[in-house]
């Protein structure tokens, strides 16, 4: 009986002393942390993809709590709704960030870009890119091994077997930017989605002179500058034999698309999907509402 009592007492007192010690130490070395960081982290998606530019969701949460305004801070995965929730917690207005989407700037399909060799090594773009020009003659174009597909955590990318090019599922794409980093040829770009998802894109990154680019791929941008002349909004620049459409200036008039002799400029998500059939009905529509033109 005595034995039980003594053990209970000893253990009890030891426990109590330890508890007091732990409490004191915890007080002494307490890390002051804003409880809102946890709250903000709670509403973030938790994918830790790094698409926001910070090392994971907690880092973004910390940055949001520290910041005076949410401008420039954006979770690309959660998008505007998530940032509104974050704003509500912090009592700040959510920054006006435009939704973006990954765009594959290569339209060198199998027909346009015939194979000149067969790659027999490891099926990754990175290794193939280090070795040589690739299976086709274009040193800038897509290698088609799918490094971007492997990098995407959201299943938004897939290789189209017919064209051999990656296709972006715009519903799933969160514009985290992983694919942009994964592509050894810098073909993928994050561009703003545009009104109703409509946008004009030069789907080519070939900087070779026209004749060489054309020899490698029928759909290549040859840097002829026709789109630049056609554009009334100065949205198109031609540099290093390659046209680029500035999404900020483009008014979607689609004139550049018609002007392009190689079909390197693509109009995405416009109502009639096939460009040639579209041309007629699209023309009157242009007059009704001002469209943006990117070339």
């Amino acid at each position, binding site marked *: 009986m005595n034995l039980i009592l003594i053990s209970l007492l000893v253990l009890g007192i030891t426990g109590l002393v330890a508890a007091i010690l732990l409490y004191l130490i915890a007080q002494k070395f307490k890390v002051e942390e804003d409880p809102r960081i946890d709250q903000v982290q709670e509403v973030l998606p938790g994918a830790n993809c790094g698409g926001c530019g910070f090392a994971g969701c907690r880092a973004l949460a910390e940055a949001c709590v520290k910041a005076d305004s949410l401008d420039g801070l954006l979770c690309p995965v959660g998008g505007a709704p998530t940032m509104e929730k974050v704003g509500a917690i912090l009592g700040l207005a959510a920054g006006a960030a435009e939704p973006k989407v990954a765009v594959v700037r290569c339209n060198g399909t199998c027909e346009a870009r015939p194979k*000149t*060799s067969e790659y*027999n*090594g*490891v099926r990754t773009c*990175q*290794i193939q890119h*280090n*070795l*040589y*020009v*690739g299976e086709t*003659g274009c*040193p800038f174009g897509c290698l088609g091994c799918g490094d971007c597909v492997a990098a995407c955590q959201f299943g938004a990318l897939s290789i189209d077997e017919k064209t051999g090019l990656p296709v972006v599922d715009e519903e799933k794409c969160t514009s985290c930017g992983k694919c942009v980093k994964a592509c050894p040829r810098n073909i993928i770009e994050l561009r703003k989605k545009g009104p109703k998802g409509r946008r004009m894109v030069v789907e080519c990154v070939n900087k070779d002179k026209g004749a060489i680019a054309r020899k490698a791929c029928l759909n290549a941008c040859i840097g002829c500058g026709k789109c630049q002349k056609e554009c009334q909004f100065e949205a198109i620049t031609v540099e290093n034999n390659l046209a680029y459409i500035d999404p900020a200036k483009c008014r979607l008039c689609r004139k550049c698309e018609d002007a392009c002799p190689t079909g390197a400029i693509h109009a995405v998500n416009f109502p009639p999907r096939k460009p040639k059939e579209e041309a007629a009905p699209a023309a009157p529509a242009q007059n009704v509402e001002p469209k943006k033109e990117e070339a």
Partner: protein
Amino acid sequence: MSTFKIGGVHPHDNKIYSAHQPITECPLTTKAIIPLVQHIGAPAQAVVEKGQKVKVGELIAKAGGFVSANIHAPYSGTITKIDTTIDAWGMKMPAIFMDVEGDEWLETIDRTPDVIRECNLEPKEIVDKIAAAGIVGLGGACFPTQVKLLPPPGKKAEVLVVNGVECEPYLTCDHQLMLEHGEELMIGIQILMKALGVTRTVIGIEKNKPDAIARMKELAAKVNGVEVMPLKLKYPQGGEKQLIDATIHRQVPSGALPIEVGAVVDNVATIYAVYEAVQKNKPLISRVMTVTGKSLRKPGNYMVRFGTPLTEVVELAGGVPEDTGKIIGGGPMMGRAMNNIDMPANKRTSGLLFLPENESRRQEPENCIRCGKCVSACPMGLEPYLLSKQAELEMWDEMEKHDVMDCIDCGCCLFTCPSHRPLLDYIRMGKGKVGGIIRARQMAAKAAAEAAKK
């Protein structure tokens, strides 16, 4: 008979196709393209203009830095343009284009077949002459030779190691050079010994070339301090560090150059070029290359002037065989499959190998069974299975810790792997990445040091 201690593999040497084929001059081309990058280091800077007439041997591009090499006109004619051309892997490279007119040589070049033995130049003059002639290591790496001949302060060369190993299967150009130009090689060796101030030379030759060993031994007997050392067959014995281990039994530390252990290694083809430059005033404008393959009609060793399209060399060898599955620039172990053969011959092209379709496929990789064969085969004592996995998982820091930068790209791991894993592919990618990280770090450290000074 000696060889290097760690690792190595024994691929079938397949030299019978082109061995003992006399060196044949390749006919002159009509339109030459001379690349400005034919060596390791900075590209050469063109010193000619469009429309200018040049003679054979005239300087057309000068070295673009300390580690770089001069380039001379291999043909006489008119420069048509300075533009870019496509190399054998489809990538762009700067080049000088010229229309060939006749074959007019600079008067200073001695074109007689006489062997000139006397050399009364000072070591400094010899090195200058070699640098002026644009000589690079013709064994494969194309490292400018004059840089090797100027040891950094505090280091002294003790032994000249001559690389007559030719461990790469199929290639026979060095073998044939030793047979046909042994005397010139001996003079070249003496010139280099004088330039370096060394008294000992070891010529390493693998035992599958008994006639070359006999010929070199016969010639070496007349020269003081030169010794011919027959070596066991083992790939990659022609690697600089492996050859030093095999011949003079010294080990070059990780990350160091051979001069660290007092050795300078030069290939026989380089030494022949040195002889021609110093004794005959002939700059490096041609080289011997092996064109070979099982189904090729006339495999052989061809003396090709730089700038000649490889297609013309192939025509000379009987054209591309019908069953060709892969064309490799260089040997089967270190060489790279080529995308096209329109590229001009240059200092780097040591061989062209035509593999038939059934030999050119890679087998489907299977899982690593941790057998450790790659570890025992690696001549640098690395762990290829680990490095390749680390590269796959992008663990660059770990790769650096495991000395990936010591990898010499020899391909022994890939050759020996029973699961056909693409070990070298990944390691090479990792090496590129880690090299970039190291360079960036050095640049940052340099910038920080400069900032601290201010």
